[in-house]
């Protein structure tokens, strides 16, 4: 069995040997990067600078909430507002791999700027096993370029440190718990680095972000409410995706023509395989009614995705 205590002990020791001087970590507010940050913090303390990038593709209220949670953990956090830079670079881009690569590169450029200011030679990432497995290399086919592996530019100014590289999500959660992360953090559902940009099929424009951000918030709220009421168990991951097709509707005897939202929820252990969640129909209906009513100007139809992984992946791009 995986021994978290031993892992923490050995990793902190290794990090202490490896990192000299200052280090910068890219932190999102998810369990992987938070766990990596606490490990490095134990090894080098004050010398770790955490950087939370506002890419413009984070979920509703996420930047402020994550900043608060991370600061409470005693971490040194700085928020970099890079929204406009991300929107600018992604204008007109629809190819999923191109999106991921642009985002991967821009992330690194932002981190390099902070590292230069801090005089840090080391850059820490919360990369876990599925990130590099799915990014491919050698014999392994590339399924998608994860922003922190396959999406990295060729020339990078600092040395990359990835303390969680061989772990899976469920193991990271055990380590996070051991390190004293709060339950809502170590049990938080996975969220991709490129964020809402890969939940918009097509151009990740500010207007499309507005739509998918609201739809994702509704899905999360309704599922969490139903879980709290014991109407269902919490899926491994649950979110909304904006599809690039419009369909016809009827709103108060008037023709409507609007976007389609796909609701996605899966059961998994480690993200490497997944079964779609059998969410009870009344809950799906609540989600559908709320999205189509409160977002009537943007969304005409809601569908539920019943694809397993394989053949589908969990996220759409």
């Amino acid at each position, binding site marked *: *069995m*995986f021994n978290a205590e031993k892992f923490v002990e050995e990793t902190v020791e290794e990090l202490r040997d490896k990192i000299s001087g200052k280090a910068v970590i890219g932190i999102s507010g998810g369990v992987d990067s938070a766990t990596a940050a606490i490990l490095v913090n134990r090894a080098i303390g004050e010398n770790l600078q955490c950087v939370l990038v506002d890419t413009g593709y984070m979920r509703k209220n996420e930047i402020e909430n994550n900043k608060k949670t991370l600061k409470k953990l005693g971490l040194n956090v700085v928020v970099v507002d890079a929204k406009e830079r991300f929107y600018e670079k992604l204008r007109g881009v629809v190819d999923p791999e191109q999106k991921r690569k642009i985002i991967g590169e821009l992330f690194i450029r932002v981190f390099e700027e902070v590292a230069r200011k801090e005089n840090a030679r080391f850059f820490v990432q919360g990369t876990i096993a599925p990130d590099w497995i799915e990014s491919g290399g050698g*014999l392994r*086919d590339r399924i998608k370029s994860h922003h922190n592996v396959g999406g990295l530019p060729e020339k990078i100014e600092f040395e990359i440190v990835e303390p969680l590289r061989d772990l899976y999500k469920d193991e990271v959660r055990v380590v996070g718990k051991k390190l004293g992360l709060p339950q809502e953090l170590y049990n938080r559902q996975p969220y991709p680095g490129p964020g809402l940009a890969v939940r918009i099929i097509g151009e990740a424009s500010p207007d499309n972000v507005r739509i998918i951000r609201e739809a994702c918030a509704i899905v999360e709220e309704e599922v969490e409410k139903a879980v709290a009421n014991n109407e269902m168990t919490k899926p491994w991951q649950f979110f909304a995706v904006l599809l690039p097709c419009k369909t016809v509707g009827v709103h108060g005897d008037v023709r409507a023509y609007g976007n389609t939202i796909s609701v996605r929820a899966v059961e*998994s252990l480690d993200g490497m*395989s997944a079964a779609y969640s059998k969410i009870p129909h009344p809950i799906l209906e609540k989600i559908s009614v709320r999205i189509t009513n409160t977002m009537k100007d943007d969304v005409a139809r809601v569908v539920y995705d019943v694809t*397993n992984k*394989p*053949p589908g992946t969990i996220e759409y791009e």
Partner: protein
Amino acid sequence: MSRPVRVYVADNGGQWTHRIWRVLRELSCESKIIPNTTPVDQIGADALVLSGGAPRIAWESPKLGNCTDYLEYFQGPILGICVGLQLMAVYCGGKAGPSKVPEYGLAKIRVQEEDDLFKGLPKEFLVWESHNDEVKEARGFAMLAVSDNCSVQAAKHLKKPYYGVQFHPEVNNTEHGEEILKNFVDVVNESQCF
């Protein structure tokens, strides 16, 4: 046993190679992932698992590196998963090629012969698949399990310690997956007693 058995994973580039390693580690084996180009005399394991991977058996078998050497010279039990099983069948004089109906994700298998791999398991259960090719003919093997769209879901060589599965026992969504790998590890443990 004075030491845990060494079961190494020859990597054919599968999405789930790392998972095989993980489950073996959880079964208290000493395990590591080795490139499939590792020379057979440098392996030093008690048993081998040939992982699945993207190479197509009919026209990309060079990408399977030294796996044929392992079947020829490796001393100890070998478990072939997915393309690993297909290579085993071809090596023993059988055939493998594109599936008429490939299987991705959920499938139900029916166990026809318990043998070692399915010891103590139900006759029917749900597994996770991910294959474009399949075994068409397996000479010298006993067929252990089938699914609706694939007639060789599991096989065991009649004379050699070769086991193969078309589905993926290393994947968490596969029912009884860990038990199947444990049954293989039990075979390895027994082979060490001689």
